């Protein structure tokens, strides 16, 4: 099951660049939360702070606290443990090019030393079914490379790969921005189903997408979170003038 996320006074830097300033945000468990805002507003940096990927860049720095479930991810655990509990799907599909579809999906488990074949078979099938890819690839699981699939299939495989390690939270950084409309709608259907089991945070440039999949939406601008409310409220009756300007297309 998913768990809630409580972000308090989060600040992040790239070198001297203060990319996130005093972010406070409660992300509800087992819901989809969308983050919108113009390019460079800090929403990608924000999700990368939720699984400590931000700090893989040597010039990056973070202060503040992020509680996921009952642990403070910057105080109580190592980045490696956190990333097992908080899965991530990236903007562009990033399959492991030398691995088969099967090995791609179970790579997170195998690389952490899990090797029970029968259990792996079951997990691969369940993850691919959850990612709505099973029927398309079940005959080529071990024959084809993950890189030989189409872009939309690769992205769903990457989602299956993230699900296979059984995370509590799934972070999606513009998961459909490199895909065609058909693949995009498949990913959106998928988010709709997955949010019953996982807490989902999705960054998107596409406001219709946010409106379709998310219960809550946060609007970011210049490294600050301007407004956070129910998606319906944000899109119909935002309380901040800047949010209104953005969603009505006056800038960004």
């Amino acid at each position, binding site marked *: 099951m998913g768990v809630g996320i409580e972000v308090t006074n989060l600040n992040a830097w790239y070198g001297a660049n203060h990319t996130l300033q005093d972010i406070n945000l409660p992300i509800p468990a087992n819901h989809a939360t969308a983050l919108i805002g113009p390019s460079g507003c800090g929403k990608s940096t924000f999700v990368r702070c939720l699984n400590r990927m931000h700090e893989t860049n040597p010039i990056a720095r973070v202060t503040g606290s992020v509680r996921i479930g009952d642990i403070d991810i910057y105080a109580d655990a190592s980045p490696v443990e956190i990333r097992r509990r908080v899965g991530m799907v990236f903007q562009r599909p990033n399959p*492991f090019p*030398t691995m*088969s579809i099967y090995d791609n999906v179970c*790579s*997170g488990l195998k*690389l952490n030393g899990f090797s029970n074949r029968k259990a792996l078979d079951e997990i691969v099938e369940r993850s691919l079914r959850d990612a709505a890819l099973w029927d398309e690839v079940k005959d080529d699981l071990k024959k084809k*490379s993950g890189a030989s699939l189409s872009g939309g299939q690769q992205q769903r495989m990457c989602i299956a790969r993230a699900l296979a390690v059984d995370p509590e939270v799934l972070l999606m950084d513009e998961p459909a921005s490199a895909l065609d409309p058909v693949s995009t709608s498949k990913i959106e259907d998928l988010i709709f189903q997955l949010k019953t089991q996982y807490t989902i945070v999705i960054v998107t440039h596409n406001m219709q997408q946010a409106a379709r999949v998310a219960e809550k939406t946060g609007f970011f601008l210049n490294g600050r979170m301007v407004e956070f409310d129910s998606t319906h409220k944000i899109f119909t009756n935002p309380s901040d003038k800047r949010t209104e300007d953005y969603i009505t297309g006056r800038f960004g």
Partner: protein
Amino acid sequence: MVTTRKKPNRVRSAMRTAADHLATGLAILATILVIAPLVAIFIYLVYKGTSSLNLAFFTQVPKPVGEAGGGMANAIGGSAVLLGIASLLGVPIGIGGGIYLAEFGRGTRLANAIRFTADVLNGVPSIVMGIAIYSLIVVPQHHFSAFSGGVALGVMMIPTVTRTTEEMLLMVPHSVREAALGLGVPNWRSVMSITLKTASPGVITGCMLAFARVAGETAPLIFTAFGNQFWSASLNQPIAALPLQIYVYAISPYDEWHRLAWAGALVLIVLIVFAVSLVRYVASRGILKGAS
């Protein structure tokens, strides 16, 4: 805005076509110039060398001066032993160094020092490498040996393997590393199982390049492996090597030995091509459909 469409200019279009043909022609010419020396050498070796190739060449040791016949079996075996030692030494150290440069030491002073050292080492003349190993191993041991020859060749492999491994690892897209880290895979594990594996075709090419280069080296063996007219299986004894044998025979005053030297050169080239192709074939069997 109304755009006025110009009529196609006949002369300009013809010039573009001509330039296109010229560029294609130059590219084809360059390709031929690249392949020509190899083909020419190979044809010449076949022409000069095949007459002395027979079963005895591969099964017998050299005959004393004045006796006809004899072969280079001991030199072929000796080269195999030397290259085996060289690869055992040069490939692991070289790949390890490349991994450090690309993954763990990026930007550090130590990494820059290693990279600089590797580049200088690559430029050290092979005869100097021979003398260095001579004074480091042969002099203290008071005898020439297969071991010292293998070490000399192995040290020569290291810089090539290190630098190609580094280059190939750096070509692995950042997104692939992020995918592994994002799954909660520890960094060292991600480097060994994901990044290195993704780069493996290029790394193998680098190792083969280094192998093929030292397989034909003569100079570093003169003071180390020394050469041997007889069979030797001991790593502590002087050992024969194909390039060394070719060198000795080629500068000798005997026609019979000249012919054997040609045959030896042909066999050396064929064996190198064979070894490289074999490794490539074995390495490519694990690659799946659709993987680049």
